[in-house]
Structure formats: structure tokens, C-alpha cells
């Protein structure tokens, strides 16, 4: 699959996985790789924010809601305050609607229960493709 506007290079989409659960990290990493993403993994919100601050670029962030040091909502708020426009998709094991709404309110583009499925990632890819 080829996405991106560059004529000469086949540029892959880059995704950041922010999650402290090693099982989820692995599942999302393999799933995203299979669907054409390059991936990087961080274990808490602070690492995610630091990466962006250091100038790293991503097309997509999968942000876990609960992480030590800095959680998903806090990291999302900070990224948006920094002016980061990257698509941030919240990932949560909580089913409570109120908590999902609160997380969305921090600045997410979307929010899903983990682990994400191939269908959901494919629909995110389509959205990313449209925005290019």
C-alpha cells in the first residue's frame, strides 16, 4: 500500500504508541506495522510529550488513558497546548461513557476500547489519507 504525496519515495505513516501495558504495546505494534505504519513505543504520557518537544513527527498517536507519571488526558492536553495537530486516538479499557467523554474533552480526535482491531486502524488510515 502506498500513501503520501511524495512522488519518488514510498513514505510510510509514522505512529506513536503510548501505553504501559507490554501486551497491548506488542499487539498494537504488530497490527500497525502490518497495516503499513512505522511505529515507536513510549510507556507514559511524559515520554510522548518529550518526543514531540524534541521535534519528532508522527501521523498518528495511540494514547492510553491510564499511564504512570503522566496519564493520557494530561499528555493530550499538553500536546494540544503545544500546538500539535497530529491525530490523537485515545485507547482505554474503561467502558464508562463519562470517562471517555472526559478523555475526548482533553483534545482527542477519537477514542476506542483496547485492543484496537484491524478494521478500526484501517478506518483511521483512510482518515489520514484524506487529510494529506
Amino acid at each position: 500500500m502506498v500513501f503520501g504525496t511524495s512522488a519518488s519515495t514510498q513514505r510510510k505513516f509514522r505512529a506513536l504508541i503510548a501505553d504501559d501495558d507490554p501486551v497491548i504495546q506488542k499487539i498494537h505494534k504488530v497490527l500497525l506495522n502490518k497495516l503499513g505504519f512505522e511505529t515507536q513505543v513510549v510507556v507514559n504520557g511524559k515520554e510522548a510529550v518529550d518526543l514531540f518537544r524534541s521535534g519528532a513527527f508522527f501521523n498518528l498517536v495511540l494514547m492510553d488513558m491510564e499511564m504512570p507519571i503522566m496519564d493520557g488526558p494530561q499528555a493530550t492536553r499538553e500536546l494540544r497546548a503545544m500546538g500539535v495537530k497530529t491525530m490523537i486516538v485515545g485507547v482505554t479499557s474503561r467502558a464508562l461513557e463519562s470517562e471517555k467523554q472526559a478523555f475526548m474533552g482533553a483534545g482527542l480526535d477519537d477514542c476506542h476500547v483496547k485492543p484496537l482491531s484491524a478494521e478500526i486502524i484501517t478506518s483511521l488510515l483512510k482518515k489520514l489519507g484524506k487529510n494529506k
Partner: protein
Amino acid sequence: MTSCLWSLENGRAKGKFVADQGIHLKDPLLDYRPMANKGYDANKPTTTMCHQVSQKDVIMRLLFVDGSLYLKGNPAIFHGYLDDQFTQLQKLQDESNPDFVVEVVSLFFEDSEKLLNNLTRALEQQNVDFRQVDAHVHQFKGSSSSIGAMRVKNVCVAFRNNCEAQNHEGSLRCLQQVKYEYSLLKNKLETLFRLEQQILAAGGSIPIME
């Protein structure tokens, strides 16, 4: 001899089988995973053959199609231990990630053992910190549902209710229960992987049934 009705859809074999000795397999759709390029004997007969092997209570079904071997998707589902999420993980396994399922499950085992130790220690304290206990159970619930371990997950749900109610006895009971369910699951998965390894090592020929 076995007979079967089967078809290949998207590289996966699906069908109904009547196994040896006239045992009728009731599963309507048997989704077999291809175990391609694992050194099979290309001289194997091109007729289709279906066999069933078992170790303890884990049953594996094998399908030979044109010299290729297909293994039954997930026998454990039929015993209610693993739900469809596990099947989704199996679908992610392919030639570029040939050991994906074993790797994810191993991560799950490592993580679980740490969590169970933490839970045991936390509940042994004089003054139990239920928020800490709840955090561990939440983590365990998340990772068990991400591999499809539904029985473990269900105990975690009850466990969290006990944490919320700060019920020490109830929490201890749940801990016992979750340890029990976890050890059953671990046993089944280890048997499954061992059986797969034996089948592959035998080059796809049928191992002797115990």
C-alpha cells in the same frame, strides 16, 4: 478414513469434517490456520485428510490439503477459556511474525505473574491500600481481555467490586479465584503450544496419541 467438505477462502481452509471412526465433528465452521513453509513433505498425497490429536484436554485438528498443513484455529474457545479476541491475535500471525501468538502470550504470562505477586503482597498488609490493589487488578483485567482470556477477566471484574467496597475477605477470595483461573488458562495454552511444536517438528505427520 475421513471425508470432508471444505473450501479455501482467502488462504484459509473452512469446512465440515467427519473424522475417523465416524465421529462427527459438530463445529459448523472450522477455521484452519495455514502453517505454510514449515518444511512439509511435498510428496504427501494430494488428497485431503483430516486428523485429530489430543493431549490432556486440548484437541488439535489438522487438515492436509495438497501437501500443506492447516491447524485448527483455537480449540480452547470451545471450552470457554478464550474468546474471539484470541482468534484475532492468531490472524495477525504470518510469515513476517511467525511466533506472534507465543510472544504475546509469553508477555502476558510474565506480566500476570508480576501482577499476582504484587496483589498477594498488597493483600498481606495490615492496612490494605485498596486503591493500589484496584490498580493492579485493573491492569490484569486489561491484559487478560486483550488476549481474550474471558474467565480471568470476569474474575477481575468481581475483584474490582470488592476493592471498591474495601472488602478484604472478598478480595482475598477473588485473588484465590483469579490465581486458579490463570493457572488453568496457562496450562491450556502451554499444552496448545507444545502440541503445535510437536506437530511441526514431526514435519506435519501425526504424532502418537496419548
